[in-house]
């Protein structure tokens, strides 16, 4: 096929998918129906792979379709389905506008060693039991983190500005939404990766995809033998080099009429620019493979330097301090385990499958899910946890389990979620207002959805909390509501393995019907 329609179709599809997937990350009012983006998330290779390892089923087999798609059409995934790939195309296009005079793509050597070393190391780290590197480099997760931590706040700020203006006119159709306050250190990794990807795409097109991205490398291996591919008709090619100058993947070696299929992302930009109509996309029997030349040591050094920096950074991070208290409580909360969101099954399961794409963070309507720093250990950096100082888990909500694409949070029916214990409540009497001030408070019990925290008679008319861990679900409402500082008088300690909570007993009320007013 030599039609420019291929390129147009690719762009239309990519733009549509990019818009939907971006909206899904900034959709703080949950306006977009899940089915719009669920099918896009279904095909994201890394989350789907994690999900499939977890529960092998058709519902998690999206990556198999992508592998098949790659075997048939080449790396069209990278051009149409990968949000980070599409993002890079957009940046690259802008880069081209700015640097038209001195930026020209040209055929470049493949960083063979670096490429496969990164893929191999990522796989080795997975086999060693950590998805840290995979989650760090996974293009979908990089995009997700960028959208959650940079784009959503901007959207919220604009929303809040509009809301402030509208409220002057007594209109509340658009309302203010609180921004999740995230410790600054959490931004370091997303900032660095987004900066790296943006700079590389601005200046070099798809260099990230063809050097660092483990998904790109993996699909590249398959696309080498893909059935449909870009080819150059040797008889009509005049070696003008326009194709190579327009190839953001730097994969067209026009002098030898060869296309490096492992790096070609099937963008079809070369087809319409060829004045000889020598380039076409079509079915071809795999020919002999040509390897690239020697790697460029400078670029290689640069990229490995960046990676070393990324690997070093987490070690130098420290958690932020708690806010300054008004009135001091004395006994620190003894936490033995972080709380992972419902559907996480266990901390191990959650850590094993979460790629830290942060979709749950942006989807949570209660701002209780935030990225961790070192709570899960350094390898779990950015994997979300529940922070009950920022919010609490709404008893009637299962949003995070609905959106998770990797199976780190498995779907939970609402009724099952209401009986899933993600942590246990602990009461520190020495910090409690009722004990220290001898006045009633009870904010914890008010907020408890199962009455695992009950107020029982204390001194005189006073009532004091009493906890029942059998029916506690670990939602953290008590901890959130507790007014003591700096230490809470009641807190939820995470369950390393989520447990079943007992259903609160329902006794029939014995109340006589009112015939007359008692006053």
């Amino acid at each position, binding site marked *: 096929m030599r039609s420019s329609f291929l390129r147009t179709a690719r762009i239309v599809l990519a733009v549509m998918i990019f818009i939907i997937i971006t909206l899904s990350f900034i959709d703080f*009012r949950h306006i977009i129906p899940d089915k719009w983006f669920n099918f896009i998330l279904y095909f994201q290779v890394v989350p789907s792979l994690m999900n499939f390892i977890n529960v092998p089923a058709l519902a998690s087999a999206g990556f198999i379709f992508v592998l098949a798609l790659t075997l048939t059409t080449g790396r069209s995934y990278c051009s149409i389905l990968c949000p980070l790939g599409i993002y890079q195309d957009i940046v690259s296009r802008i880069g081209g506008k700015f640097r038209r005079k001195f930026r020209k793509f040209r055929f470049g050597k493949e960083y063979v060693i670096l490429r496969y070393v990164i893929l191999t190391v990522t796989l080795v780290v997975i086999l060693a039991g950590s998805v840290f590197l995979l989650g760090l480099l996974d293009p979908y997760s990089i995009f997700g983190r960028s959208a959650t931590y940079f784009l959503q706040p901007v959207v919220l700020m604009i929303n809040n500005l509009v809301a*402030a203006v509208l409220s002057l006119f*007594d209109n*509340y159709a658009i*309302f*203010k939404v*609180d921004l999740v306050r995230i410790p600054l250190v959490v931004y370091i990794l997303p900032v660095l990766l987004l900066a790296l990807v943006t700079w590389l795409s601005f200046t070099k097109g798809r260099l990230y995809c063809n050097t660092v991205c483990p998904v790109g490398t993996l699909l590249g291996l398959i696309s080498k033998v893909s059935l449909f591919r870009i080819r150059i008709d040797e008889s009509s090619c005049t070696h003008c080099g326009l194709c190579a100058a327009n190839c953001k993947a730097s994969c067209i070696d026009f002098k030898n009429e060869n296309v490096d299929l492992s790096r070609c992302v099937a963008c079809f930009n070369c087809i319409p620019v060829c004045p000889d109509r020598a380039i076409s996309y079509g079915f071809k029997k795999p020919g002999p493979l040509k390897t690239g030349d020697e790697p460029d040591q400078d670029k290689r050094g640069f990229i490995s330097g960046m990676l070393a920096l990324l690997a070093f950074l987490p070690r130098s991070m420290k958690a932020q301090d708690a806010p300054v208290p008004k*009135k001091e409580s004395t006994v620190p909360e003894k936490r033995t385990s972080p709380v992972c969101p419902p559907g996480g099954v266990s901390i191990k399961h959650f850590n094993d499958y979460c790629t830290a794409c942060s979709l749950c963070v942006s989807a949570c*309507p*209660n701002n209780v899910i935030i990225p961790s720093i070192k709570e899960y250990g350094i390898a779990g950096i950015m994997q979300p946890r529940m922070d009950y100082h920022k919010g609490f888990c*709404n*008893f*009637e*909500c299962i949003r995070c389990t609905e959106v998770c694409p990797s199976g780190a949070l498995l779907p939970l029916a609402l009724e099952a979620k209401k009986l899933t214990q993600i942590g246990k409540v602990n009461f520190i009497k020495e910090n409690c*207002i009722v004990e220290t*001030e001898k*006045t*009633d*408070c*009870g*904010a914890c*019990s*008010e*907020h408890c*959805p*199962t*009455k695992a925290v*009950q*107020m029982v008679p204390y001194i005189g*008319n006073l*009532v004091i909390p009493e906890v029942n861990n059998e029916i506690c679900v670990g939602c953290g409402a008590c901890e959130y*509501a507790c*007014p*003591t500082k700096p230490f809470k008088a009641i807190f939820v300690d995470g369950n390393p393995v989520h447990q079943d909570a007992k259903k*609160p007993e*329902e*006794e*029939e*009320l014995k*109340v006589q019907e*009112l015939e007359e*007013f*008692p*006053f």
Partner: protein
Amino acid sequence: MKRRDFFVKSLGAGFAAGAAFSLGGYNKLWASTPGAQAYDMVAVMGGEPDAMFDKGISALGGITNFVKKGQTVVIKPNIGWDRSPEMAANTNPLLIKRIVEHCIRAGADRVYVFDHTCHNWVKSYKNSGIEKAAKDAGAKIVPADTEKYYQEVDIPGASILKKAKVHELILESDVFINVPVLKHHSSTKMTATMKNLMGNVWDRGFWHSNNLHQCIADYATFEKKPTLNIIDCYRVMMRNGPQGVSVSDSVEMKAQIISTDMLAADTAAASMIKMTPEQIDYIPLASKKGIGRMDIENLNIHKIKM
């Protein structure tokens, strides 16, 4: 304005409005009852929430005794929790709907409904059924989850809560109608009229950490008091309050208490859930502050059975 003066004045206005309405051949249901006595409290039993309100407000001379043409009204139900109406954790939506309708018929310029919720406000407004009910009746439903909506006020009569940040609508509206639902409450034992006002302020944590009962009584002394209090006792949560664990925590009482006196209303409400007012610390504390009458046996209470 003293309570008695208020009633005398309201009554005059009520006559005027009633006369105006009767001239217009207005639907009797909505009209005031000419010659109504100056009741301190009206208690209705045995009907649906909206029908009970029609009867009750009519006995007080109609809503026009409280809402004048062109005024802005703010209605403050309890919408604290993401719970469905049958749990009775929030004020009955049907009652809110009818109150809004009365206000709009009385010529209110605008009617606002809000609450500073405990659960996510979007979910609470929606799942309580109040958002739809209020909107259908023509009210504006307003968020209250952001500090910027609140303005700091002095409460000179307070012992502890000397300053509070109060929702601007409470401060700016001409008429403030307080519509709590009667419930068991884990920390204060009961929530009704005065406790519902906690949803007018921003920093509730301060109340909890600084003698909750005293703060409730303190806030009741704030000059912007409810024009009218309507306690929804249609379904009453008897245990596991304030949000309830299951439907079995509540019973159907099919009652309603309407009064301009917060303290009298709360005293009456206490007996509905078989408690004495002395058991609920903030009631005697509010009485000490002179907020209203605890001796409801000496009040002129009109009881209606439907």
